């Protein structure tokens, strides 16, 4: 009897021990993703979350009323001696050097303001910022990650300043396209993206487009395409010539969404594509969805994509393209380094294409984390002046000098059209001028990333039909927007 009992308890303990790791995961995210006002949410899921929400709604009411105050001081020289603490996650050299340079310039221009820059990894920033924002002594300026999970939860808890008065004072919406400001905007309850108040201003940008190998196109006597239609018409010719048309690696799941986005977004048009993400009047039953999904499946069946792509990481695909493995590579601008490492500075080009030649320009992309001002920050006017300084035309020039893609390229900027970087810059500038930046389509619901990446893999492997695919995606959309 006793043995039996001891054995049983041992089994239970062992079982429970393993499961601990799993079970611990479950309450884990609540503590990391919930607002600080509902501090230890692991404890009381329902009640803590309930009271947390009560606080946050009153707090957000406070932040909106504070935001309506007029009398913004836009002259930092008159603000007295101030030390501004700035938190960012820009650890990679190009952008980090740009910020150091801009900080130096700012201090030289306004000697009464000293910048204390605190750099940390993106993960560190996201975890520590939540706690710091609710303290009485938060950073004066901090980068907030767009989307429901981070910026949304800060906004919901009333921890970020509505930048509307500063937008008015500095005229941001005059120089920043509305498609970009939308990404840093939310309703004060954090429930909707793309509308409501402005909570951040971003300095850098990225876009998903088409990289092409210049020497392959030249060898095959193909012109650089000027539309998606022309691009598609070249694919069979490239295949017939024994060259892989499109390099593709989808082990990380996200590349499938980027691959599809290149044809989907222009087919949907900027308005519909944005509405799908921002919860506007749009639906995945739009004919453009089925049409481009069919195209994608056809590409796969015709062998236009790398074989065994699901087992190849996106980095490997970028490297393979850099080694001349394919004519085209449909991916984001962040792959530029991997490509120039193989093909040299001017061996590849970059394209953001309209659906038909001369049509409206629109593409999927994003912005660097938005520079935001915590509600409890002490010197908000100085913070806003600093944000204005590091996102203006001069700042854009500094970013370009450091091989970065500024969110808004300056009007008079010069880019070398023969290099990939120059190409990327020129196309980004064209897209910005056309106000054509569309948000990543997987932002539309919290589950859309999984739904899209899973179903796109199934679609490309002919495991589901296009109507099944559309149905699955629309079901995800319906679930989120009918539930809330």
């Amino acid at each position: 009897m006793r043995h039996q009992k001891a054995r049983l308890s041992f089994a239970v303990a062992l079982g429970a021990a393993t499961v601990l790791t799993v079970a611990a995961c479950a309450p884990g995210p609540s503590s990391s993703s919930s607002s600080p006002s509902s501090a230890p949410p692991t404890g009381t899921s329902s009640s803590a979350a309930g009271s947390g929400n009560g606080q946050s709604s009153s707090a957000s009411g406070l932040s909106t009323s504070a935001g309506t105050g007029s009398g913004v001081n836009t002259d930092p020289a008159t603000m007295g001696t101030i030390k501004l603490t700035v938190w960012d996650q820009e650890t990679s050299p190009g952008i980090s050097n740009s910020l150091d340079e801009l900080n130096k310039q700012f201090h030289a221009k306004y000697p009464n303001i000293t910048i204390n820059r605190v750099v940390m990894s993106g993960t560190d920033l996201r975890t520590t910022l939540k706690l710091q924002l609710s303290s009485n002594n938060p950073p004066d300026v901090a980068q907030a990650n767009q989307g429901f999970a981070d910026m949304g939860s800060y906004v919901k808890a009333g921890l970020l300043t509505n930048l509307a008065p500063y937008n008015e004072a500095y005229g941001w919406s005059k120089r920043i396209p509305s498609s970009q400001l939308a990404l840093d905007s939310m309703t004060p309850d954090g429930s909707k993206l793309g509308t409501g108040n402005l909570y951040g201003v971003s300095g850098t940008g990225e876009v998903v487009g088409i990289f092409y190998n210049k020497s392959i196109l030249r060898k095959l006597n193909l012109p650089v395409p000027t539309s998606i239609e022309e691009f598609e018409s070249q694919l069979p010719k490239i295949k017939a010539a024994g060259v892989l048309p499109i390099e593709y690696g989808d082990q990380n799941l996200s590349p499938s969404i980027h691959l599809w986005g290149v044809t989907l977004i222009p087919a949907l048009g900027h308005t519909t594509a944005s509405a799908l993400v921002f919860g506007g009047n749009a639906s995945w039953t739009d004919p453009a969805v089925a049409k481009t999904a069919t195209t994608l499946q056809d590409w796969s069946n015709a062998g236009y994509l790398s074989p065994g792509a699901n087992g190849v990481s996106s980095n490997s695909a970028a490297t393979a393209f850099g080694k001349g493995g394919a004519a085209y590579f449909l991916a984001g601008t962040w792959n530029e380094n991997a490509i120039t490492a193989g093909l040299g500075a001017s061996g590849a080009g970059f394209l953001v294409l309209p659906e038909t030649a001369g049509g409206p320009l629109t593409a999927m992309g994003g912005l660097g984390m938005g520079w935001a001002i915590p509600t409890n920050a002490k010197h908000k006017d100085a913070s806003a002046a600093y944000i204005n300084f590091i996102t203006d035309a001069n700042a854009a020039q500094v970013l370009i000098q450091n091989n970065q893609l500024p969110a808004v390229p300056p009007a008079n900027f010069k880019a070398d059209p023969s290099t990939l970087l120059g190409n990327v810059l020129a196309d980004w500038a064209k897209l910005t001028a056309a106000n054509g930046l569309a948000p990543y389509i997987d932002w539309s619901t919290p589950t859309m990333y999984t739904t899209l990446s899973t179903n796109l893999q199934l679609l490309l492997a002919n495991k589901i039909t296009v109507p099944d695919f559309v149905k699955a995606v629309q079901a995800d959309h319906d679930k989120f927007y009918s539930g809330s």
Partner: protein
Amino acid sequence: MPVTASSIGALPPPVRRQRRRADFVAYLYLAPAVAFVGVFLIYPLVEAGVISLYQWDGISVAKWVGLSNYLTAAQTPEIVQSFYHVGVLIIFFAVIPLGLALILAAVVQRGARLHGLGFFQSLIFLPQVIASVVIGVIWVSIYAPTGTMNTVLDAVGLGTQNAWLGDFNTALPAVGLIGTWVEIGLCLVLMVTGISQIPSELYDAVRVDGAGAIREFFAITLPGLRGPIVAALTLTVLFALRTFDIVFVTTGGGPGTSTVVPAFLVYNLAFRESEVGLGSAVGILLVIVTLIITGIIRRLEPKEIDE
């Protein structure tokens, strides 16, 4: 048998007062362990159980939904499928390595004194001490279309360009084989140690009776290894059930949903999709499955314990 703290309470009390005192002291000794287990194990487990009864996005007000998260879990093909996948993984992570280890251990035992046995044992045990994420990264490059696996197959004339982790048919077995590679060392060390504890007289006796190697294995080695087998099965099955890191690194659940496992779903639902309630429900279901399976394995343990 040694008098343990927990068995004191069950002893018939000679004197009432003494017993109470003994109880008190026993509980005092137990307190640190109970507190630790309570705070870091029981509490999170109960909490996860409570959360699983709510629809909660992790931030806003949770809505009481009773058992509907469990109903949703039972009706979601992806979740049901994940438990089937973990069943396949148990074969690769526990059954196959144990079988291979038994054969290898029997061979090693017949081979008597092998030179450098300790060295080979540590070598084969090495995967156990490497972080799972590192193992995942190593195998991603082995399984890549141009990786070692295909190079080796090509060398023996089985030229393929298969992306083992990217093919709907091979992804799950490919992930499973990583587990086999990891667990075989552990199983082998447990079996070899177990065999060394079987009295050599038994082998002498069975040889005198004229038994061959195979007869010897089934008559002496296998029954003598029941204890180590249970230990090895428990450890490897638990490793299979809580598989997360290897899947996360190698396939991310893909292609499609062909390598999705419950622990991965718990993470995905709770962290990425803000379905904390449903994620907790899957976690609790995994706890229940784990308890049932470990309970069954414990039944295999030898009933007789030397007094």
